[in-house]
């Protein structure tokens, strides 16, 4: 057992973990961050995606100890960003979900993608989102929602 410190959504949090614990389990079970979903457990579905020091990674493929001293952002942490709030509204407006289980991962991933490149479009955008799977198959709506939200990321006043 060792104690690690992770900045989760802006707050410094401590957790006592075993070396072999996954970041996914620690976030959900020890730190109560439940927007991070567990589904395939093998890096395929992407529902456990979080931003680790700003980059999207799959938390079922990451050890909790690897995140020691680093910063994790999940869907819960996006409320403070006006653009990300609008992005989430865009998901609602476009009906970009059925069961909603994949939505936090899509929101986190598309926030990262649009922050980096608000002009992204077409195949490039689809490829960037391809690491997350929606079993309900609402890909068209998700694509439209993200594409539509590009305007918020281009807006210098937001």
């Amino acid at each position, binding site marked *: 057992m060792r104690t690690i410190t992770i900045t989760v959504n802006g707050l410094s949090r401590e957790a006592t973990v*075993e*070396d*072999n*614990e*996954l970041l996914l*389990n620690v976030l959900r079970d020890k730190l109560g961050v439940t927007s991070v979903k*567990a589904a395939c*457990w*093998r*890096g395929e579905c*992407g529902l456990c*995606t979080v931003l680790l020091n700003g*980059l*999207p*990674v*799959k938390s*079922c*493929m*990451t*050890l909790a*100890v*690897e995140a020691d001293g680093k910063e994790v952002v999940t869907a819960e942490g996006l409320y403070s960003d006006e653009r990300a709030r609008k992005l989430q509204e865009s998901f609602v407006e476009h009906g970009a979900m059925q069961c909603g289980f994949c939505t936090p991962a899509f929101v986190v*991933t598309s926030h990262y993608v649009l922050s980096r490149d608000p002009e992204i479009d077409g195949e490039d955008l689809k*490829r*960037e*989102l*391809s*690491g*997350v799977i929606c079993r309900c198959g609402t890909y068209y709506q998700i694509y439209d929602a993200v594409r539509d939200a590009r305007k918020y990321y281009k807006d210098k006043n937001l």
Partner: protein
Amino acid sequence: MSFTTPYFTLPKFTYYKPDNVSEALSLLKQHNGKARVLAGGVMLVNMMKERMALPEAVIDIKGIGELKGIDITDKGVEIGSAVTASELQKSEIIKKRCQPLAKAASYMGDKILQNSVTIGGNISIGMPSTDGLPALMSMDASLEVRSADNVRTIPSSDLVVNIGRTVLRADEMITKIVVPHTEGVTGTYAKFLNASEVAISTAALSLSLTQKKLRIAVGAISAKPYYFDQSLLGWKWDGHLEENIKTSVEIIGSSVKPMSDAVAGSEYRREVSKILVARALKDLFGGA
């Protein structure tokens, strides 16, 4: 993966995060075959979930600065083994001088995994479908392999012995990849997969009209990629492009012995390889 596999948990191990390469190497030596290097972790974590890897020590190398560089030196382009697939695609040096690798990196799993996957980890797994190795072979890259007591350099074409098996000893790791300079080099990478998302065939091409060098590595069809150069292909630099492509593809088709597995049969792999190479050659010479 079977449903009885306890893949929600990992076996017990001790995690180490060394600050530099020599510390990592002495940890490997100390644990005498029972330690594993953790780079992106994308493969190792899955293997541990499936109890296919049961290391007593896991040595995390991804934060080691010495393994993160992309530099131009007198030897060529030197790439640290812990550089990620995303970093390769963003690097101006790689995009300009190592095109097959820049493109191959864009196929190493999805865009999210590419932030984790490292070039060293990618080739060390020794799987036929690995995208990094054909790209490196098409550029005649060599690998710097180190242990606590030794440094050796091996050609990338000598790395894999059999499916999942490499020449790396348990106390060794790849520290660097060296791509020798080739003047006026261009290149490309092509991959063909079916719905299983496992490659049926891949082709990495590297071309220099200045130095009259054409090198092709065909991957995913056998334990290790096949390598061809202009002389093996009977390439005529003053010949007709269509004729050259036709001859090359015939030579490749008749020299490879593709494997048959659940993903594709041998003959199908052969045909797909020929088509991939023909298209890639057309692209490459069209843009050269």
